[in-house]
């Protein structure tokens, strides 16, 4: 007994000593660690930060410099072109650039409308928990896993004027039906179509007389429609998954409450669920919007480039042609800078409001 109690006190005291020692050992490093922590995180981050500063911001600065320079051949010439900014002035005088701005605007609007509308529709259908929910969800998302080049090549064949859907118009008898009503057979040229729908030139010309001299039609180039369909097909699944995630955050009680208050099933969606999805719509639109402003590969694969009358030309293709084919590095850089500004125009207000909320 005694020995055991003695032993216990003995072990107690050794434990205490050990504890105090341990705490004294621990204490020093805590202060050290605190100091170390402060220094360490910037130290660890600094390589990445340095790389980002160099490879993003310094390079943006170099691009701006090149766009103002005389560099118009393979020979690097960083001297500033006089008068300042004349490359930009020339670019904004180019018919091709006008067509670019029109196309990228039309494409963005149509593509966003298409992807968001169908993405929401698919998400709402899946929200009804129909049979095979998980299969359909994956099937709709699969196209998003493809690269734009693959999508472009596949849809290029589907919208080939001699093959693809045009053959279907014949074999399904749609053209016979049209012929029966006395119409011309349906043989759209798709990406090779040069017509521009809903041209606003005369209307805009009366409002802003300088626009009368524009040599392009301000409207919807028909050739962009198949590209919008292809891009929409690929990214609708992405919009859908964003909406599915959004729908999961709408509290079930809210819907129940609406139903108890006598809302019809349609009203539950239009008045309760969809308004709750607004933040999702904004973030999806911004992600898709900057994809569409930078689009290059899909159009390059589908239309092979600018297309007749620049109907499928976008800034990305302009930059490629003028930098690498024409070796006009200043002009290519100027177009890139404008592309960057366009993307900033979309992203900066969004980031700003988001950061302010925090």
């Amino acid at each position: 007994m005694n020995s055991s109690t003695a032993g216990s006190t003995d072990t107690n005291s050794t434990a205490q000593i050990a504890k105090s020692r341990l705490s004294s050992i621990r204490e020093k490093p805590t202060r050290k660690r605190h100091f170390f922590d402060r220094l360490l995180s910037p130290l660890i981050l600094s390589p990445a930060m340095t790389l980002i500063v160099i490879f993003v911001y310094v390079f943006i600065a170099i691009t701006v410099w090149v766009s103002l320079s005389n560099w118009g051949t393979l020979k690097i010439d960083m001297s500033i072109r006089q008068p300042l900014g004349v490359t930009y002035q020339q670019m904004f005088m180019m018919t091709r650039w006008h067509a670019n701005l029109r196309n990228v605007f039309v494409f963005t609007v149509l593509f966003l409308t298409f992807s968001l509308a169908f993405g929401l529709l698919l998400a709402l259908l899946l929200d009804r928990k129909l049979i095979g929910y998980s299969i359909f969800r994956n099937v709709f998302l699969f196209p998003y896993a493809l690269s734009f080049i693959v999508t472009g090549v596949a849809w290029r064949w589907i919208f080939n004027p001699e093959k693809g859907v045009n053959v279907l118009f014949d074999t399904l008898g749609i053209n016979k039906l049209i012929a029966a009503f006395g119409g011309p057979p349906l043989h759209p040229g798709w990406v090779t179509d040069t017509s521009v729908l809903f041209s606003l030139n005369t209307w805009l010309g009366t409002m802003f007389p300088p626009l009368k001299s524009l040599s392009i039609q301000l409207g919807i180039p028909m050739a962009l429609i198949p590209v919008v369909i292809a891009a929409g097909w690929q990214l609708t699944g992405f919009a859908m998954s964003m909406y599915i995630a959004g729908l999961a955050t709408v509290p079930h009680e809210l819907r129940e409450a609406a139903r108890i208050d006598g809302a019809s099933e349609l009203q539950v969606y239009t008045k309760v669920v969809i308004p709750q999805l607004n933040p999702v719509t904004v973030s999806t639109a911004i992600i898709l919007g900057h994809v569409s402003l930078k689009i290059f590969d899909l159009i390059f694969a589908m239309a092979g480039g600018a297309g007749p009358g620049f109907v499928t030309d976008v800034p990305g293709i302009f930059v490629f042609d003028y930098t690498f084919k024409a070796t006009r590095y200043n002009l290519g850089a100027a177009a890139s800078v404008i592309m960057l500004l366009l993307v900033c125009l979309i992203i900066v207000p969004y980031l700003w409001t988001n950061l302010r909320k925090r």
Partner: protein
Amino acid sequence: MKINKCLPLTKLATALALLIPFAAFADNAKKLEVFSWWTSGGEAAALDALFKVYKERTPGVEIINATVAGGGGSAARPVLQTRLAGGNPPDTWQSHPGWELLGQYVEPGYCEPLNDLYKSENWGKVLPEQLVNLLTKDGKQWCVLAGVHRGNDLWYNKKVLDKAGIKIGDTISIDEFLADCAKLKAAGVTPLAVGDSGIWATAQLFENTLLGTVGPTGWQDLFSGKMAFDDPKVKQAAQSYAKMLEYQNSDHSALTWDQAIKAVEEGRCAFSSMGDWAHGEFTKANLKDNVDFGWVSHPGTKGGFIVVADGFTLAKNAPHKAEAIAWLKSIGSKESQEEFNPLKGSIPIRTDVDKSKFGPYHQWSMNSFSSDALLPSCVHGEAAPAAFQQALNDAITQFVVDKNVDAFCSALVQAAKESNIAK
């Protein structure tokens, strides 16, 4: 403890791994890097023929075949530009003579002059002077050409024309051509095949028509700035071109140039204006010269030969200079020229080769080469800077849709000013 034991080993392995790239660079003897965009069937075979002759002449050299696929070098040029600007040039690379060579590569100092080679090989005696002028700057030569294509050919399906009762002689004028087109259209045949999904193909049609209107001297004047691009003759050429476009196939912008040639082969269209790389397409389809298909100088261009030539340069600070010079010597040899050109579908630049190795078309082309005015092509980057070439392509892209002659010409005038062709 385990980690500590392993550490020296890891360090050693890392050090060795770091050394590997240096080891690869250290052994730079007996190698040759050739940069080109010859990857398609006939082109790759022709390039192989050049390699074969080179290996026979200089055994023991390993050839690094740096090809980048993509029509007309559209993908290869960006790669080459990056390598040149980064100070990592291939020993030798493919280039057209004229502006692309002299303005793009020689002017910024990426090339070594080859006048000593031209002297020692006596090439001055066997090469046409007009051709050598296209690759000469400051009295020095800067590349060796492997072969020459003729750009201004009009190809036709003989059977289709026979059926429509049209006979083509040695020469054809623009008016005669348009009259034939009208006749064919009335007979229900699409007269002209164009495949301008790559815009250069229809630009080629314009270029040929422009030569047919301004003639060889006018051509020289245009690109030396003596004649303006809004000259009445250029406008006339644009109008003729617009008239030709009315006779083209409706699916032109969905086709490539070779698909357009196919339309002629199959008799869906009668004519196509294209360089003689089209000849290879006809022979691939087992069609016979002068039996199934025929050719004539593009309307109005008899006496002019638009040169589309492929040559190789010598890089400044080439990593394997001796091998590269041997390569250029080999390309210029009679043997290489005779092996390469039948496969590529072009003609030799030397006038002393055995003509019997070539078929009827190429013999015709060789005769034209030795007697006609040799002119640089604008569409293929020889006559004018790349920036002008791009501006011409852009102007054509717009013109095929709106057919606005004045806007077209003023765009060219502006581009000529910016790229210092015209003052």
